[in-house]
Structures are given as structure tokens and as C-alpha cells.
């Protein structure tokens, strides 16, 4: 009796959960997918569904050096941010987990700080801090600000990887006579590869589509793609941003899929 009741409940759950999950996905995805058809529409105004189909918006994007420049600027900032975040976070995670520093757990929580402060507050704070130092409209300023935003994600991802690295391996290497530096580069770092890859993807995407902080600290010289899109919506309402959005989405998804395939390959090895 109870067995039958249980199986009925299970089959109900087996059906109910995926349906709800898919409804949530669609609810979250539909508004952004609406820009895909619009991006293949005409160049005069945004309309859905488009009355005529063309690639004019993409042509316009690639011919306009202002758009094109913003895109390369964004990719450049995202790349440098990723490198900075990794170089900063990996040794920090290693030290916090292995060195038994005083207050290491408090410090670990402290590095999650940027997640807890509203981004607009951070942006305003950074703006007020950088302005008197003459740091606005500079690539380094933007990279450092984005590094701060991306660090918690890199720390979490690399930290999870490091928890799977058996400390006995480091002890074994130490007994075999290896120096601490060699142990870090030959024993620990290779095993953090997947964590660093995942963290890097996060860092890259966070920097690539970050608009609030970038809006505050960039200027005409350093304008990134999301900032340019935001301005375009406010001042020109150019339908070309539908093409830009589509391109950004495709780039992000391509990176995410590449990472998933990379992880699957590593696991099968």
C-alpha cells in the first residue's frame, strides 16, 4: 500500500520537476532570445517580429569602427582581467587553505566581500576613489576594478579544485626532497587546471558583460562594448545593438560549451 503510494508520488515528481524546471528556463531565456530575430531585421528601427530579413545590422556593426573598437576593447579588458584574477587568486587560495594562517577562515570570507556589496555602491565607491587620483578613463583602472569583481568566483572555483587535491601528495613530494616552489608548480598547479579554467571563464564573462562599474570608471578612450550599448540605447536607440547582443551571447555560449567539453575530456582521461 505504502509502496504504491510512494511510487505514485515518485512518478508525479519525475514529471513535475522537469516541467517546472523547463518553464523557469524559458521564462529566463525568452526575453534575451527575442533579440536574435530582431538582429536579422531592418536597420531603421527595432521590431519584433521583423517585417523583412537581412544581415544589414551585422554589416553595420562590422563596418562601424566605434562598435568594432568597443568590442576589441572589451575582449582586451576581459583577457587581462582573467590573467590578473588567476595570478592573484591561485596563490591566495593555496595560502589560505594550506598555510594555517591566523584568521584564514575570516580572510576567506573577506575575499567574498565584492559579492555582498551592491555593484552600484562599489561602482560609486570606485569612481569617488579613482577620480582624485586621476585614474578614470584608464585601462589599468578598469582591469583592477573588474579583477576585484571576478576574484570571488575564481577563489570559489579554484578552492573547490584544491579541496580535491590530497595534501598527502605534497607531503610525499616534500619527503622526496622537492622544494616548496617545485611542489607548487609540479604537484599542485597541474591539478588545479580545471578549477582555474572554470574560474577564468567566469572572470572573462564577468568582465565582458559588466556595465555598471565600467560605466562609472571608463571614458571615451576606454569605453567597453556593454557601456557603448547602454549609451546607444539611451541616445540613439540603434537597432544594431540587437546584433551586438546576439554576438555577445554567442561568444559567451561558445566559451561555456568549450569549457564543458574540456572538463568532460579531462574526466575521461
Amino acid at each position, binding site marked *: 500500500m505504502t509502496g504504491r503510494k510512494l511510487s505514485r508520488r515518485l512518478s508525479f515528481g519525475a514529471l513535475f520537476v522537469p516541467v517546472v524546471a523547463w518553464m523557469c528556463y524559458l521564462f529566463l531565456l525568452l526575453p534575451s532570445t527575442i533579440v536574435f530575430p530582431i538582429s536579422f531585421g531592418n536597420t531603421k528601427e527595432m521590431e519584433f517580429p521583423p517585417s523583412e530579413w537581412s544581415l544589414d545590422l551585422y554589416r553595420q556593426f562590422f563596418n562601424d569602427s566605434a562598435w568594432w573598437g568597443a568590442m576589441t576593447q572589451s575582449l582586451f579588458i576581459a583577457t587581462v582581467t582573467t590573467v590578473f584574477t588567476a595570478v592573484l587568486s591561485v596563490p591566495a587560495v593555496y595560502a589560505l587553505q594550506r598555510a594555517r594562517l591566523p584568521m584564514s577562515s575570516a580572510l576567506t570570507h573577506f575575499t567574498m566581500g565584492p559579492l555582498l556589496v551592491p555593484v552600484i555602491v562599489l561602482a560609486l565607491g570606485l569612481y569617488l576613489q579613482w577620480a582624485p587620483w586621476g585614474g578614470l578613463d584608464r585601462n589599468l583602472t578598469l582591469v583592477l576594478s573588474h579583477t576585484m569583481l571576478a576574484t570571488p568566483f575564481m577563489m570559489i572555483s579554484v578552492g573547490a579544485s584544491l579541496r580535491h587535491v*590530497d595534501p*598527502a*601528495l605534497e*607531503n*610525499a*613530494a*616534500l*619527503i*622526496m*626532497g*622537492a*622544494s616548496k616552489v*617545485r611542489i607548487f608548480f*609540479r*604537484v599542485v598547479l*597541474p*591539478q588545479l*587546471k580545471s578549477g582555474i579554467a572554470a574560474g577564468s571563464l567566469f572572470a572573462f564573462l564577468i568582465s565582458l558583460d559588466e556595465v555598471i562599474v565600467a560605466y562609472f570608471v571608463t571614458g571615451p578612450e576606454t569605453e567597453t562594448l556593454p557601456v557603448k550599448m547602454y549609451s546607444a540605447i539611451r541616445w540613439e536607440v540603434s537597432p544594431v545593438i540587437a546584433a551586438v547582443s546576439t554576438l555577445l551571447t554567442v561568444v559567451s555560449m561558445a566559451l561555456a560549451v568549450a569549457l564543458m567539453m574540456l572538463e568532460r575530456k579531462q574526466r575521461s*582521461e
Partner: protein
Amino acid sequence: MTTELAEKSVAADTGSMMIEVHRLTKQYGDFRALDTVDLSIRKGEFVTLLGPSGSGKSTLLNLISGMTSPTSGRVVINGVDATDMPTNKRGLGMVFQNYALMPHMTVFENIAFPLQVRGMKKAEIETRVAEVLKLIQLENVANRRPRALSGGQQQRISLARCIVYNPSIILMDEPLGALDKKLREDMQLEIKRLHAELGVTMLYVTHDQDEALTMSDRIVLMRNGRIEQQGSPETLYFKPDTVFSADFIGSSNLFQGRLEGEGDTVTLTAGKDRLAVELRSEAAVGPGDEAVVLIRPENLHIADGAIPEGTNVVTATLLDTVVLGGVVRHFLRTEDGRQLVAQVLNRSDRARPKRGAPVQLYWQVGESRLLKADPTFSKQ
């Protein structure tokens, strides 16, 4: 004259010792994990640290490897005071229970790692790795990842990784703990073979008495951070000095009671039984003292007809009989509730006593061993 001689003999001693531990103590807060331990290990010796968990054997191993530093005392490795030497300068090798092979390296790279650390040339590394792979008979797995191998193979790789760079001593921390019984026995013989062939000094930690008895030149039995007794496997099995040693190694039948009488042979009264025992000067017990008499199961016989002279006899009921292949174990209980074990060789033609039947048990007075009673020890 005498002091000069003494100094000379000490110097000669130091030359043949691989590890010397002097009054080594490790304190964790209120807990003394290791308590003023002295231990010397000769070059080429196979020494086992045996004891229950928390007895200090792993602490001693970690102090020798330098993974922890002592509260007081000295560690001397190959004649050099290594007490304050960092782990990676001590020139040791270690085999871990979970193998500790690098998962991101192939078998070849794993074994080559300690040689690269020593700055060896590539060509020589290749020769040396090939040599040890041949020695452990795993030449065909050089390019595999450790995870693709069985537990036994991984442990042999881990052993090869030690052997390849000739460490002064190989420390082993329960290396066979993760393997099943059959594989464990094979690996015990494999380790013994390598020890005999290479003449390398080994310090082996285990809580498994059978493993210790099988492999060691010398067993160091530990209890509560101290050395309880050390000696060859035979000494520990046949001549335990304490009740704890007697109980920890092998099975034992123990009778506790007060000694009475005079002369070399006295009487121990345990419950209803009055047992004749031979006094031993080392046992440091005499008439009037609480003492324990130990009889190994193979020396406890079940009467089958006439009982020989010079024996003690007790009456018991047969509870159960277990056939362990070549030997048979009889589990018995005396009238006052004492559990006893008797072990005989199995023979197909021998009639066995029936379960529940009363039997007479006897042993030669000379085959029992008198021990001092230990108020801190109670048999579970």
C-alpha cells in the same frame, strides 16, 4: 681505560645506526602522544612499529620524517642530527597507505619525479626508472596513469618511487591497509623480497600483528606513547614481558590471581583453579603478589585419555569449534566463566569433542609464562 673502551663502542655503534631517536617527546596540549622514547635502527634492518591506534607509532614516524617537530628530544639520521632539519633535506623515502601517487603524472613521470628533484640527467633517469620498473615487474605500465592501475600495482609503483633514489630509510605508514587480504599477503612477501635484495633500511608502521610477525626483523610494540616491548617476532610471541604484549600479539589465555608458596614453582589461585607456575626473576613478582599466567592456544591441550605429569588441569565446556584450514580452534568456557582458546593441528582422522561436552584441559607448567599483573590493563 673502561671509559675509553665505552666511548669506542659508542662510536662504532653510531656508524652502524641509520636512525637514532633520543628521549623523543611530543606533547599536544594535555595529551602526550610520544613519551621520552629511545629507539635505534641498524642499517639494513626491517623494524616494525606495532600498536593500537593512538599508541604513538604514527607520531614517531612523523617526527622522524620531520612532518611534525618534537617537544623535546633528538632525531639522528645516518649519524647527523636531523632534529631541526626540514623534511625535504632529510633524504628519506615514504610509502603511504593511500599510495600518494601524482594523478596528473604517468607512472614513468611519478618515478622520475624524485630523480628530477635531484637534478639527474634525462638519459640516466630513463635507465634508472626502467630498472626499478623491472625490479617490481611492472615494465608495461610506464605510460599509464596511476588511477588506471589496481591498488596493489599502485602500491608497488609507490615503492618503486622510493627505491629509485636510494633514500637512507624507507618509512611505511600502514602501506597495505587499503588492500584486500590475499593481495596484502602477496605484497608482504614482495616488500620482504625487496628488503632482502636491496638491503635497504625500513621502518614499517602497522596495527596488524600478523603483518608485523611476518615481515619484521624486530618489532617495537607501542602503547600510550611509550615502547612496551621490543624484540624479534619470536621473542614477542613466546616471551612477552607484559600482559599487554601477551594479549596484543597472538591469541592468549590469561589467568590472573595471587601467588602463594615457596621455591621455584609456586601456586597461582585464579577463581576455583589452583595453578602451578614457575617463577621468573625478570617477571619481578613473588609470593603474595598479583600475577598473570599466560598460556598460548597451541600449548593448551584437550585431554584425550591419560593426562601427562607436570601439567595443570582445568575443566571447561566446549562452546564452539572453528576449522581454519590446517588448524582447528576450540573455544571453551570454565565453570567460573573464563573464556579459553585451544588450538590443534587439523587431521582428517581425528575425532573432535562434541559441542557442550565437558572437557579436561591441560598444559605443561614449563609452557606457561608468568607475568606481572597490570591494573591498567583489562582484556576486552
